[in-house]
């Protein structure tokens, strides 16, 4: 029973496959009229014949009966006795439809009536005065109807021996020799290999009625090159014999194959479809043997399947070798095996990918019937032409393309192509032309549906859009003709004058567009009134096409998948060196107040930097690690100093870009020289030799022919992490909040109970060091840091009442100061955002601004400058004295932390400090006191810094008071805006030295200004 079910399932699949092509064959024969192409007829005959044969074997009476009727008709067509006109073709197709229904309902076909179809077929036959049953037994089928000689070509061509076809009467042979049929076959196979054979079951009949003739046909390849000798040798009496000449066909196949559209296919490997491609385009569709039976199954060309099988067995072989090598501990051999595994796997992968590719002809084929039926129904005359059915697309696209394409085809027939009389009147041929075309262009597949109908009238479309309230009159008139055509893709837009049952199905072009869009296709329409309409859909060839950002470092180009790119920051001129700061070995960038770890692509990929030598104009390699080092060598607190010698050598690019990448939940900044473009790139697999670094995901050929490496984002992150292994991860964590409100601080201790905090913005870098590296000179400690002696400060000496306990391994924190100086730390604990303000009252100590609770632990905020002043007087810059004596200073700042921080060092310098939390409070204080200068934050609640400075500069009595803008962001934009608003100067909150310098110069200027003003008065 099971066996039977298997057979039935096999029968259904096979029959469906055969019947799938019947429609287009019939339509072709109908078109050809008298000049019928025998090959098409034979193809059709074989299909129906097979269905009949198999069904009779399985006792499916109705199917057998119906297919027998159909077969009769075709055999008459083949013999030229019948011409398949429209009526007969209709009858035939209806018969085929019923056959399909019967096959679908196998085992449950009781209610299906085939009488009408049989009558119609009979009528069609009698019409021509013939009956298929008149065909006598004596009439022998042509070999080409039994054997698919063309599609067997590859097999035939391969065997390189003469091939013969024979038909013998097995019954007669057996009777004459008094042997069993098997003996006859044995006799035959002695002289050659049977390539194919066919036992005509029709002539056998049931067991009850044994006929006296059993026709057996076979194809044999034999070394004997004389047919007569062969026949004698086989001791048979053939009813029909023929030598099959395969040479010409063979070369024909080869020739055609090399001109095939798909040059990816290996030359020399003959695929079944390759052989089919050698026929004309029309035939191609009808003979395509890859049509999926159902969506859930895939049919694969046998040679491809063979290849997969081979690869699978090779894989097994490699596995066995691997096991063996492992058992014998043969390490050397393992490398070989691994390599082999690699080859097999990638081949396997490629082949499996290939199984996903389907010729679009599978979809096109069904339109023959659609167009014919539709045209008949509407009373139009339409001829469908199909070009490029062999173009292959991803299976998912081919399967889903059918519905939207049907809509386009229906539209073209219904709305596009005019009625014959209208066409006649317009001087066109009454027969409308509909072209379905697929072709490759620029790595994409274009699918076109074009008709030579009336075309789309942009004016009509405009009017229609206005009438439907989609556009206003003005908007409509402003549209170019091209844009007007695209109106058809807008929801709720239908240009048909009358809704027919053909296309009035409620599915508009908008749905078609979105359907194509889902498949990654782009739709476009072009049309000319009176000449026709062409709708083009462009698909990616594979789904391995991604949009990417192309960047450059030196002369290397790289592609970064767009999905990873968040934004791009441009650093220009001096910013390149100034905006990127260092914490420990890690570079960071303040992006809108959050700390962004920076990686330089040049560094990650070890690309030599090149600079133009000003004397020779040659490119020279730069040996310094990066731009930050350059800055570090000079020391850099005074802004003006940076403007000094700056960069004696000119960088090739005096700007750089930070590409902000999203890697999982992290953001990192990748510094590159240039942003080239965004491009849709075709991902090409990477050579094994280039995979080691892990930095690349593939390669791509760009528009200009250059090759760009596609960066593997995960690999880049790994490379970055590798470089900073010795860095506490927490230092590079991305911080989300704004510096203005919650500055990040570095927490460390000196081995005692106290935890110290220093704002990250004050720190240039944190270095690991070893106690042994400390050198003592003049009773002071130094460390040799990149060739420079850096004095070390022990906090226990500067801050009273603290205990220290250092290990061998310790850290040195280097604050930003004019000359490098290091604060020794026993442990670097963490970096944190400070939510709370500083309590400057509870703990008052020298060199400590105040205290706060961070993560539940008491933390002392270190006054870094006081520490430096105390340990190395004058080291942090002797700016304080320039201010010229104690001043009354108003500090307007909303952040409690900065209020405490800034006021602490202003107090330290001996100034009298007044505090305000926002601009409004500040303005109140201004009217109560006479200030020497005002320091004001920019971003504040209630009244911000810009508003405040506008207010104060508008008051004659206060406008001479210098106002310094303070910002957490040291950005040019902010600076320009602040100066424009009326601030006298702009400084970063954490730049203490800069602030004092600015204050002193401001005071000096103010003094001059007021004396000048005094003289005028």
């Amino acid at each position, binding site marked *: 029973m099971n066996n039977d079910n298997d057979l039935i399932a096999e029968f259904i699949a096979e029959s469906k496959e055969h019947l799938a092509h019947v429609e287009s064959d019939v339509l072709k024969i109908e078109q050809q009229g008298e000049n019928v192409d025998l090959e098409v007829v034979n193809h059709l005959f074989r299909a129906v014949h097979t269905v009949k044969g198999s069904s009779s074997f399985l006792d499916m009476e109705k199917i057998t009966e119906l297919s027998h009727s159909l077969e009769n008709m075709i055999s008459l067509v083949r013999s030229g006795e019948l011409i398949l006109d429209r009526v007969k073709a209709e009858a035939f197709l209806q018969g085929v439809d019923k056959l399909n229904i019967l096959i679908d309902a196998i085992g449950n076909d009781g209610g299906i009536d085939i009488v009408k179809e049989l009558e119609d077929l009979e009528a069609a036959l009698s019409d021509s005065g013939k009956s298929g049953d008149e065909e006598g037994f004596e009439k022998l089928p042509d070999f080409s109807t039994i054997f698919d000689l063309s599609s067997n070509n590859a097999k035939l061509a391969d065997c390189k021996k003469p091939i013969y076809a024979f038909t013998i009467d097995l019954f007669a042979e057996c009777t004459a020799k008094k042997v069993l049929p098997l003996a006859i076959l044995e006799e035959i196979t002695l002289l050659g290999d049977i390539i194919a054979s066919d036992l005509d079951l029709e002539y056998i009949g049931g067991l009850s009625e044994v006929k006296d003739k059993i026709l057996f046909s076979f194809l044999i390849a034999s070394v004997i090159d004389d047919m007569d000798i062969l026949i004698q040798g086989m001791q048979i009496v053939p009813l029909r014999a023929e030598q099959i000449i395969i040479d010409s066909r063979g070369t024909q196949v080869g020739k055609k194959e090399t001109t095939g559209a798909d040059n990816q296919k290996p030359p020399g490997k003959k695929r079944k479809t390759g052989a089919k491609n050698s026929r004309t385009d029309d035939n191609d569709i009808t003979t395509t043997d890859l049509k999926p039976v159902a969506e859930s199954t895939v049919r694969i060309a046998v040679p491809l399947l063979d290849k997969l099988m081979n690869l699978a067995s090779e894989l097994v072989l490699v596995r066995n070798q691997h096991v063996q090598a492992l058992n014998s501990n043969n390490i050397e051999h393992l490398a070989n095996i691994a*390599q*082999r595994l690699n080859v097999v796997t990638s081949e396997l992968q490629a082949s499996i990918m290939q199984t996903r590719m389907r010729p679009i002809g599978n979809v096109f084929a069904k339109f023959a019937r659609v167009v014919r039926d539709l045209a008949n129904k509407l009373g139009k005359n339409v001829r469908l032409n199909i070009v490029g059915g062999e173009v292959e697309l991803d299976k998912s696209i081919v399967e889903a393309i059918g519905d939207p394409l049907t809509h386009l085809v229906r539209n073209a027939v219904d709305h596009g192509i005019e009625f014959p009389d209208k066409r006649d009147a317009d001087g066109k041929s009454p027969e409308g032309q509909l072209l379905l075309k697929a072709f490759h262009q620029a790595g994409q597949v274009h699918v076109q549906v074009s008709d030579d109908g009336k075309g789309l009238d942009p004016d009509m479309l405009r009017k229609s859009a206005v009438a439907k309230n989609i556009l206003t009159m003005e908007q409509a008139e402003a549209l170019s003709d091209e844009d007007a055509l695209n109106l058809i893709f807008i929801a709720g837009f239908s240009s048909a004058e009358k809704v027919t049952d053909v296309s009035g199905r409620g599915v508009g072009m908008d749905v078609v567009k979105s359907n194509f869009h889902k498949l990654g296709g782009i739709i476009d329409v072009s049309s000319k009134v009176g000449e026709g309409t062409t709708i083009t859909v462009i698909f990616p060839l594979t789904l391995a096409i991604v949009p990417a950002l192309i960047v450059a470092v030196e002369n290397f180009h790289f592609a970064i998948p767009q999905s990873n790119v968040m934004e791009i920051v441009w650093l220009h001129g001096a910013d390149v060196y100034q905006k990127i700061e260092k914490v420990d070995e890690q570079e960071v960038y303040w992006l809108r107040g959050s700390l962004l770890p920076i990686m330089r692509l040049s560094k990650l990929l070890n*690309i030599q930097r090149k600079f133009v030598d000003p004397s020779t104009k040659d490119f020279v390699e730069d040996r310094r690690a990066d731009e930050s080092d350059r800055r570090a060598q000079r020391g850099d607190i005074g802004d003006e100093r940076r403007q000094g010698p700056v960069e004696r050598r000119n960088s090739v690019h005096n700007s750089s870009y930070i590409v902000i990448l999203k890697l999982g939940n992290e953001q990192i900044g990748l510094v590159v020289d240039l942003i080239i473009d965004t491009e849709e790139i075709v991902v090409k697999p990477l050579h*094994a*030799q*280039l995979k080691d670094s892990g930095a690349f995901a593939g390669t791509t050929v760009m528009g200009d022919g250059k090759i760009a490496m596609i960066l593997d984002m995960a690999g880049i992150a790994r490379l970055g992490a590798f470089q900073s292994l010795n860095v506490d991860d927490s230092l590079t964590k991305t911080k989300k909040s704004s510096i203005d409100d919650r500055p990040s601080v570095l927490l460390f201790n000196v081995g005692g109970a106290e935890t110290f905090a220093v704002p990250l913005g004050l720190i240039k870098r944190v270095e690991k060091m070893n106690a042994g590296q400390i050198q003592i000179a003049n009773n002071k400690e130094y460390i040799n840091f990149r060739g420079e002696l850096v004095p070390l400060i022990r906090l226990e000496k500067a801050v009273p009442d603290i205990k220290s306990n250092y290990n061998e391994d310790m850290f040195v924190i280097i604050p930003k100061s004019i000359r490098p100086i290091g604060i020794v730390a026993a442990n670097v604990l963490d970096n944190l955002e400070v939510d709370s303000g500083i309590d400057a009252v509870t703990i008052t100590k020298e060199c400590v601004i105040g205290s706060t609770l961070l993560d539940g632990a008491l933390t002392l905020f270190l006054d870094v400058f006081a520490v430096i002043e105390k340990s190395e007087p004058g080291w942090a810059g002797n700016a304080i004295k320039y201010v010229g004596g104690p001043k009354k200073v108003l500090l307007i700042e909303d952040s409690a932390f900065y209020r405490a921080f800034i006021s602490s060092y202003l107090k330290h310098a001996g100034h009298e400090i007044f505090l305000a939390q926002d601009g409004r409070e500040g303005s109140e204080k201004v009217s109560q006191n006479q200030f020497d200068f005002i320091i004001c934050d920019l971003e504040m609640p209630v009244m911000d810094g810009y508003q405040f400075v506008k207010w104060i500069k508008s008051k004659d009595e206060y406008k001479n008071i210098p106002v310094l803008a303070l910002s957490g962001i040291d950005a040019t934009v902010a600076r320009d805006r602040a100066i424009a608003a009326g601030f006298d100067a702009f400084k970063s909150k954490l730049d203490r030295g800069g602030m004092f310098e600015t204050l002193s110069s401001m005071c000096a200027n103010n003094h001059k200004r007021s004396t000048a003003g005094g003289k005028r008065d």
Partner: protein
Amino acid sequence: MNNFVTFYVEDRTFGFDIMIVKEINPNVNINPVPLCDNYIRGLVNIRGQVVLVMDIAVMLGRGPRPITEESQIIILKNHREISAIKGLDPDIDVHAFGDKPIGLIVDRIGEVIPIKRDAIEPPPRHLDEKNSRFFRGVVRLGKNLLVILNAEAMIGKK
């Protein structure tokens, strides 16, 4: 008689069995690749195919060769193409060839020379194993020696 493509690297003559050579291309617009082994020169775009270019001189322990007017890239067949060859020299290990195109940059291309298989001597034993693993054999050509290279060893991964 097999045909061999001969070529010059640092004035030494080398040869490949012509059956494994797909084409010889003068396009030496090589795009270097960061972080790769020093014998890899980079990638070159040949009709849309990305070809990996290796430097034979570096593989043989010499410095990278300068690119001149005469420099050419010998592009080898891939695994699929090699497997399809009938009557390939049985010494050639088909499986060493990968599926992606690989080329070798040479200073200059010489002639195609037919050589009898038995005229090829095995490489002398006293050669440095590091370099001689790339030698398949040696043929005397008049006054000169032609070294037949073992392409599989060169393009196989290390």
